[in-house]
């Protein structure tokens, strides 16, 4: 009897807390819309205007523009930037994640917090902001872009890598440790076999993210095709903007297709 009363009470409390969350979300939505002065009734016109805009300004896209050698070179530049940044970023992420995992970090006292700090910082700052910062430090061009993309890659993949390490089974790690292996041996034989498959999946996913980012860092002058997008947008050449955006969509779709097959191959 008494037990069932407390069970019912607990369920009532749960129901109440769910209602509270719902209510607070509603209130928050209303407050934000009000604060930002969003006039919901204008949404009706949005689609109408969008239609007109597409018909008159973005269509037809200036496809000739994206076949010009100068622009094509910037597309190649973009791909190379993304590849370099993803490669370096992943190579740095692997040892960094090892340092930043609480269960097997080889230097739990100093290395762990430092690695965590590095990952969190890379992550906290958006890749466009990194790009702005490094354009100011090393000047316009691909170098700033590669550094910015590398940092955003590290922030993304090192965190996911570390999370994988933190969920491994401790048994094999102990077995390797007990045989007198060095910290590197413990990592290569105790940790790596357990995270390898997941790490490959994460690496492919990271490539998608870095590649998408590489198409826009040029907006702030950090190399790649983003610069052309900005110029076209600034000069209100909507047909060119349309062509470039179409190309980005196509490239990202290709890259995701490639990732899809790579993932399938590795996961069997």
């Amino acid at each position: 009897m008494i037990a069932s009363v407390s069970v019912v009470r607990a369920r009532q409390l749960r129901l109440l807390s769910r209602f509270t969350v719902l209510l607070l979300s509603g209130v928050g939505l209303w407050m934000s819309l009000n604060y930002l002065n969003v006039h919901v009734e204008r949404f009706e016109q949005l689609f109408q205007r969008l239609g007109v805009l597409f018909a008159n300004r973005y269509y037809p896209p200036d496809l000739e523009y994206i076949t010009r050698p100068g622009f094509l070179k910037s597309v190649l530049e973009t791909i190379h930037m993304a590849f370099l940044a993803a490669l370096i970023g992943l190579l740095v992420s692997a040892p960094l994640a090892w340092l930043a995992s609480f269960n097997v970090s080889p230097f739990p006292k100093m290395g762990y917090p430092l690695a965590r700090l590095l990952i969190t910082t890379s992550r906290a700052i958006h890749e466009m902001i990194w790009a702005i910062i490094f354009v100011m430090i090393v000047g316009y061009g691909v170098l700033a872009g590669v550094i910015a993309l590398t940092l955003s890659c590290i922030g993304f993949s090192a965190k996911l890598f570390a999370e994988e390490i933190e969920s491994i089974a401790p048994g094999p790690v102990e077995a390797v440790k007990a045989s007198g292996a060095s910290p590197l041996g413990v990592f290569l034989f105790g940790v790596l076999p357990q995270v390898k498959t997941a790490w490959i999946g994460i690496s492919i996913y990271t490539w998608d993210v870095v590649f998408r980012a590489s198409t826009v860092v040029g907006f702030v002058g950090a190399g790649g095709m983003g610069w052309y997008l900005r110029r076209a947008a600034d000069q209100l050449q909507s047909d060119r903007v349309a062509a470039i955006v179409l190309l980005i969509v196509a490239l990202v779709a290709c890259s995701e297709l490639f990732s899809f097959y790579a993932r399938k191959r590795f996961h069997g």
Partner: protein
Amino acid sequence: MGHAVNPSPILAISDLKVRYPGTAVDVLRGVELTVGKQELVAVIGASGSGKSTLIRCINRLVEPTSGTIRLLDAEVTALRGAALRRARKRMGMIFQEFNLIDRYKVLDNVLAGRLGHYSALRCFFSLYPRDAIDRAVRLLERVGLGDFLDTRADALSGGQRQRVGIARAIFQGPELLLVDEPTSSLDPRIASEIMGLIRDIAQEQGVAALCNIHDVALARRFASRVVALKDGRKVYDGTFDHLDQERLAWIYAEPSRGHS
């Protein structure tokens, strides 16, 4: 009950105390233990009596709070870094859950037992010396897995996995085997096969072994000397002759903490 003092013990533990960080009670409360060369010692005791803690202290997977652990000439409790790894190299460990590298082949699992001897990168690229590979193969044949060299470890049955664990520990070339409940995950028939294998192979290789088993009947069949732990204290050390039902019932009774 007193065991004859071994003239040159391979392992000598004295006044060993362990308290896990963040807890309020000692799990081991002053354990004394010596193990002679080539001796097989069974450690029995109720679940939670501290058997695993004792074994894991000896190779410092668990940090002792106080006391000394001597492995021949080395004072294990004082070692750090490379010196600790050298001491660990001399102790092979066998686990209840086998703790193999699942994705690796059987042979590679055994070869990894030499990780303390060769550099990690050398092992990673599988550049083991020819005679080391021969020795690993012979050991696998000895434990009855000659046909499974290229099988992935996670494709084996429990008993086969433990055989790999035994081969790995022996391949390491230890002077002492630390064995923690090697048969608790196996069914009874396989369990006694595995215990027999551990006893025989330890004898052949001239290795001493300290083996946790909570199953007294099994311990009686394979060990000549038994050490009993109760609430973190050694309460028996000797042959099975003086270990009568009454005493066993007391050893396995509910823990009586707080009477220290």
